[in-house]
């Protein structure tokens, strides 16, 4: 979901994606950089992203990933369910506060 969210903002290649996610999470998420690739392949297979070879700003041959319409839809669904879950948690926390 994080990958899709990052890609919604702008298409990126693998390395850039890692950098972006790490920055966004304030380096809280220290995952092995390699673990991004199996996830990207899964998204590719599910046709939520598409990839194209291009040349990056640093003049490097890179494979840029772009979110597809299906990916967008999926992301929205995921976010809304995520938000609902958050809402739910917030509600529970509120009531517990009210009780105490």
């Amino acid at each position, binding site marked *: 979901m994080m990958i899709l969210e990052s890609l919604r903002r702008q298409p990126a*290649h*693998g*390395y850039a994606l*890692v950098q972006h996610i790490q920055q966004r999470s304030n380096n809280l998420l220290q995952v*092995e*950089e*390699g*673990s991004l*690739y*199996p996830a*990207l*392949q*899964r998204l*590719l*297979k599910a046709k939520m992203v598409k*990839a194209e*070879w291009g040349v990056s700003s*640093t003049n*490097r*041959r*890179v*494979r840029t990933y772009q979110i597809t319409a299906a990916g967008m839809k999926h992301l929205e669904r995921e976010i809304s369910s995520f938000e609902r879950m958050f809402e739910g948690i917030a509600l529970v926390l509120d009531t517990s506060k009210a009780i105490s």
Partner: protein
Amino acid sequence: MSWFTRLFSGIFWRRRNLYSDLAEEMREHLEEKTEQLMREGMSREEAEHTARRAFGNATLVEERSREVWQWPRLESIWADAKFAVRQLAKSPAFAATSVLTLALGIGANTGIFTLTHALLLKSLPIPEPDRLVRIALDIDSPNGVVSDQPLNAFLLQSIQRHSKTLSGLFGWAPYDFVLKEDTGSRIYSGAVVSGNAFQVLGLTTAAGRLLAPADDQRGGGPDGWAAVISHRFWQQHYHSDPSVIGKHVTLTDHSVTIVGVAPKGFEGVFVTMHPDFYLPLEYEPVMRGAKSMLRQPGGLWIMVWARLMPGVSQKMAAAEMRTIYPIAVSETLPPSVRHLAVIERSGFAVRPGGKGWSLLRPQYARPLLLLQILVGVVLLVCCVNLAGLCLARASTREHEFAIRGALGAARTRIMQQLLVESLLLALCGGVLAILFAWATDRYLLQFLADREAAASLSVRPDPFTLLITGGCAVLCALLFGLAPGWLASHISIEPVLRRSGNSITAGKNAVAQRIFLPMQVALTLALVVVAAMLTATVSHLRATHLGFRIDNTLLAPADFERLPQKGLDLVHLYRRIILRMKQLPGVDNASVAVSTPLHGMGQTGVFTSASSSKPAIDFTNRYWVNDVGAGYFATLGTSMLAGRDFADEDSDAGTCILNRSAANRIFPGSTAIGQSLRQTNRNMNVGKITTQDCQVIGIVEDAKYTSLREPAPPTVYLPFGVNTNSLASMYFVIHAAALVEAQNAWQKALHELAPGSPETDPISFAVQFDDSIARERLLSVLSGFFAALALLLSGIGIYGLMASYVTQRTTEIGVRMALGATRGKIFALVMRQVAALLLLGTVTGGCLAVFAAHSIKAFLFDVSPGNPAIFARAVLILTFSGFVAAMLPARRAVSIDPMQALRSE
């Protein structure tokens, strides 16, 4: 290129593109990271390291990413399988040994299991077999409980009237019919059954209709005597012609109407029989006339099956039967018989009926179980042996595993590889095993004493047994592949890669192998001891004093039921046939008898001394009775101890001959000859007691009739005559110079003097003798085979272990030799190793064998389970074969050239 290959190459082309894209992408990623780190001030080398560390296991990542596109796991297993095939092709000796080992191990299991399944486990092809029960009589006689006895029509009706737990009850009695056609008469197996039998079983017809209660009436039903034929008979005899329905045929002298065909695959409720004709119970008196059992309340001849009512358990039905038994007895038996102790103590038993029933079951259930255990042990030995072999192989391949590990293969991946290899071997073995089992089962069936049963038992591998074989193979693969797999996947990569020559895990493996080998030796020893005891049992049984000879003697059953001669005329016919046979070439003696030794069947009677005042009591005064002709003892080689033989004249009536033990029991302390013997008959049907006296004219040697295991029964021999019970179906006993001559004489005499009687198959006495110890022979031959197999496997195991020991110690042996050790010392060094392993195995195996021997006590005859000679011999055999197996590696060790051994280091 066909569209098919194009499609496939298309898919793979796309894949390959995907994979190369991925690899490139990852490479770029690492480079970008490295460059950035270098911009931040790291050296190139340092930056590369950091980038790699941050990225994680690149191979694993790549693999995982690829897996996304694959049918998960399947492709990696496919790749492993391909690799395994290549690996195994590289070492064909190893592959062949393992596959063959497994084929024998699994094949033995499949073979025995197929038999077990056919005889003990297969359900009848009927709906809801679980609800079918069998109701039998368990008779508690002073000689022990005789269980699973049949009932009769009166008891059946009585249960039917009173039972509230059974929804249908039917009787079934196997019966042979003679089908008379224009081409001649032939005997077919069949059964007389209650009219509702097929309804209760829940069967539907293949053509026409099945029997109905209306058919089972005195005088026949709407179609006259209705007969149902088997599907097989319909196919083979009538070529599945539907017009056969309604056809009249002559079956055992009476016309019956074929009304229908039983469903395909239904072979009756007796597992080992295959009936071709089913007729109603009421047909029995029509065929047998005065000898009919149907209206005799005292006989026991019908096996009873029933369906449990819905919701009723077998226990509830059994409880109800206990209350019904006394009612049924009082309803059916005459008052004078009702209160005999033996009847009061007996009762109805309810047993599961869904798997049918067979006389062979009680006989073979335990031997088959024992065999199943033995083959299980053999399979275990196979697995242990293969585990050892695979371990040795794994240690030679550790370099390969280390490299794969260094290249990033996960541990589970390496383990998977090895397991796939084992699985491949096991499956190849399994396929061979099925062929092996299929071939051997035909041979095994010859051991079943019942020839008809052997013919009708289907031992073709069916889906169920194939499943078991497959399961066996997978289990084996896990058993022998797991240890090497685990070891291989836990190799410490670095040291292995650093050292190029010697094996690191050898130490670890050697420990594992050293556990496996004594285990194998122990199991083998137990098998050898068990086999030796079972074999000793057979030879002891063969060596027992029989009281008769078995060579060149032919037993020919007469079937004179349909001859016009009855009574005295029939007696004279027998005498004429005997006389004629004696004139024919080669025959040196011939006679006739009701029962022949070791046939498994015989009659008993109650006898007392006529001068004794004590009343005749059942069981204590019960003796074997055999009605025989003159010359019977001479033909069988039973010696006459005193007095004279029968004369085959009508004056024989009123005389009898005793065997030694009968004479000693009936007339203790006095000469039996010339004394009077009284036979007491109690008619169970009417309760009347009759007596008959005869004079003892001779004493003969004891002869075993029932079984070789039991002492010869006290026997009373009566002259055969008009009072003989089964006069029309006695046995001719013919002794000739050769069996062929005996057979020719029997056929010639029969054709000349009784041309109308159906031809029967005579069997040689030697065969009957072998049949009587069929179980023991089966056990002895198979356990011997399994023990030999285990010995061979252990030999291979020891050879393999010692060979790898010598290879690993080449340097050490070289040094020792260089320091002056003699060849003898080196030889002793190797042999000491073997001796230590054998000792450990023998001690463990000895304990195991004692336990095993005690648990097979019931199968043994004249062999004590602690017999030291057998144990000693088994240990000797094992040790000998162990040392022989170790001889080759030891000789190689001795021939090591110290110079070369040291130089190679």
